């Protein structure tokens, strides 16, 4: 046996590999880059991936249940843009928030209903609802891409909140990560998500309410997107709906998948999201300090993802079950 010396490579999964890459990068950056290890910079790293990480938590729960939510970014940007637009046109705060919350939950319910009861593949449903949400809100409810936060509004104050000099987003990310961890690990419905994701038919046969749970996951993901949007607006004092056209959606999937949450469902957890977010955060921060142009940053990011997937494919060959069911 191999108790001392080389680690057992066979026991390394993608999460382990990515974690190792993150640690290596971290150590290299700490040695090679002046100012990297500074406490403020470390806070900045965590903060830079907080919103991304929050969105990835919602995405992770959906993916574990063998689904995907491509409407997350549209919900995040458009709900908050609509909220701010309502405020700017004089709607009372409570009423505006109630409208937006109802809208967000409605889209989550619609996603869940179509996937669970109409049996439409999640990838198509959420792609369509995402486009619909963007198109409807952009054309009917708001007048401009960028909607500012009204002066002195609580969203603006939220952005200035600090505890121990650490921005509020970091605490929200940490808090949500903890809640999701508790939910997935210790609640009955949380455990059921794994069963449903691993084998929906079997889960249903043993009496798990697979369909209502599916709906719940999409509602959860939509709600988390709203929180992420509010935090973005809080920090920037405005929300720009252009973000829907950006690569943010792929970055969210990237964080979840690179951390080792399999797209075939039933595997992974909050820890995987944290590992994925850590790698992306360290990578982006180090590349910005070195002043690498964005084009190369994307190239490097993509190369590392590809590398992790290839290594995972070699170390953990696809088993019979995934081969039969296929990924989403």
């Amino acid at each position, binding site marked *: 046996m191999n108790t001392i010396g080389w680690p057992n490579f066979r026991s390394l999964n993608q999460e382990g590999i990515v974690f190792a890459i993150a640690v290596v990068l971290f150590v290299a950056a700490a040695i090679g880059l002046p100012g990297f290890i500074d406490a403020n910079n470390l806070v*900045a790293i965590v903060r830079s991936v907080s919103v991304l990480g929050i969105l990835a938590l919602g995405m992770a729960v959906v993916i574990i249940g063998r689904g995907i939510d491509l409407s997350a970014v549209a919900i995040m940007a458009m709900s908050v843009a609509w909220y701010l637009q309502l405020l700017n046109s004089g709607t009372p705060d409570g009423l505006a928030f109630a409208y937006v919350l109802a809208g967000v939950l409605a889209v989550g319910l619609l996603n869940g209903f179509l996937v669970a009861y109409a049996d439409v593949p999640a990838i198509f449903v959420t792609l369509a609802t995402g486009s619909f949400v963007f198109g409807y809100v952009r054309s009917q409810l708001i007048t*401009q891409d*960028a909607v500012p936060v009204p002066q002195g509004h609580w969203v603006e104050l939220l952005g200035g909140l600090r505890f121990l000099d650490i921005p509020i987003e970091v605490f929200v990310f940490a808090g949500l990560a903890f809640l999701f961890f508790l939910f997935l690990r210790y609640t009955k419905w949380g455990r059921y998500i794994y069963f449903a994701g691993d084998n929906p038919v079997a889960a249903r046969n043993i009496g798990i309410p697979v369909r209502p749970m599916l709906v719940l996951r999409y509602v959860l993901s939509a709600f988390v997107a709203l929180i992420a949007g509010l935090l*973005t607006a809080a*920090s920037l004092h405005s929300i*720009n709906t*252009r973000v829907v056209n*950006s690569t943010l959606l792929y970055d969210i999937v990237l964080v979840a998948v690179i951390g080792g949450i399999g797209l075939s469902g039933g595997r992974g957890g909050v820890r995987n999201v944290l590992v994925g977010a850590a790698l992306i955060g360290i990578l982006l921060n180090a590349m910005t300090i070195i002043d690498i142009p964005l084009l190369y940053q994307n190239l490097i990011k993509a190369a590392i993802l590809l590398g992790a997937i290839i290594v995972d494919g070699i170390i953990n060959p696809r088993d019979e079950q995934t081969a039969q069911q296929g990924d989403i």
Partner: protein
Amino acid sequence: MKFIRTLMAAATALAVTAFVAPTFAADDPGPAAYAQALKGKRVMLVPLAMGFDLAQGWAHYLKTEVEAWGGVFETRDPNWVVDAGAQAITDAISSDTRPDVLIIHAPDLNSYSKLMKKAQAAGTYVILVDNPANFPADAFVGSDWDRLGQLEAEAAIKGCGENSSKKIGLVQGDQANSSSLYQYAGIMKVLDKHPDFKVVAKPDSNWDATTSRNVTTTMLQQNPDICSIIDFWDGDATGASAAIRDAKLDGKVFLVTTGGGEKAADCDKLQDGTYGAVVMTDLARQSGDMNAIIKFLLQSGQPAGTSHTYIYTLEKATTKADLKPDSCWDLKALQAEAAAK
């Protein structure tokens, strides 16, 4: 009696004037030729997206003029998607109602070159606005981005002052858009003349405010004594300003950016000190330039693609000190005006 005679004389004089005046006007061939050349002509604006201040301002000013001379004004909204813009242009060229003038806001140097050539071949005048492209359009109306970059750099140097760290940070847009590339070239031209000033970092924001915030945070972390930051667009400079605010460096870092001179986007932020200087495009004048060249082309009788005119908009770096009530135009006011109609 005398009073009545005077009154009659006055009435006669008035009547004569009233009759004579139109005769004079009818003798001026201008208005008739103008109306004949322009009436019913179609003008189409294809910006990068309709959802931001520049495009909405252009559309407002163009529409007012075009409709006033009896033309038809249309816009297309590609919503930042290059393919959608290409589709819009293709459809426009091949439709029955082919526009006589196509005003294009190019996303990069090359994407629409072939389509613009096709448009000209079909007989449509092509006017490029704001972003230059590798294509001999009938006219280019917009900023000289190189000059604009120079103005930004000069504003940054002035904002830093002689006794500062003389460290400048750039937040570029991307490495494909001509406005970003030429802006950078202009900035470097000025900084080459001031060798004591140094660019300490020059990350890209990809025109995204969150990215701008993150890279600026890192930049300030690495160089807390930066005296000025130039962000290449006011659309994402809100991110850079958030990073400055978060680092508690408000008032210490002089933030320079550029924009369309919209009140909420630029003047309000100069007023509250978020931006130190904004190189603003005089949008009403720029739209006026477009209107003038449209009228010229439609009356010229020359085939599309014959001449190539560059009309650069006068740019100026505005600071809080030289803000005037009319420094900016107000999108909200324009929208309210449009809604009232």
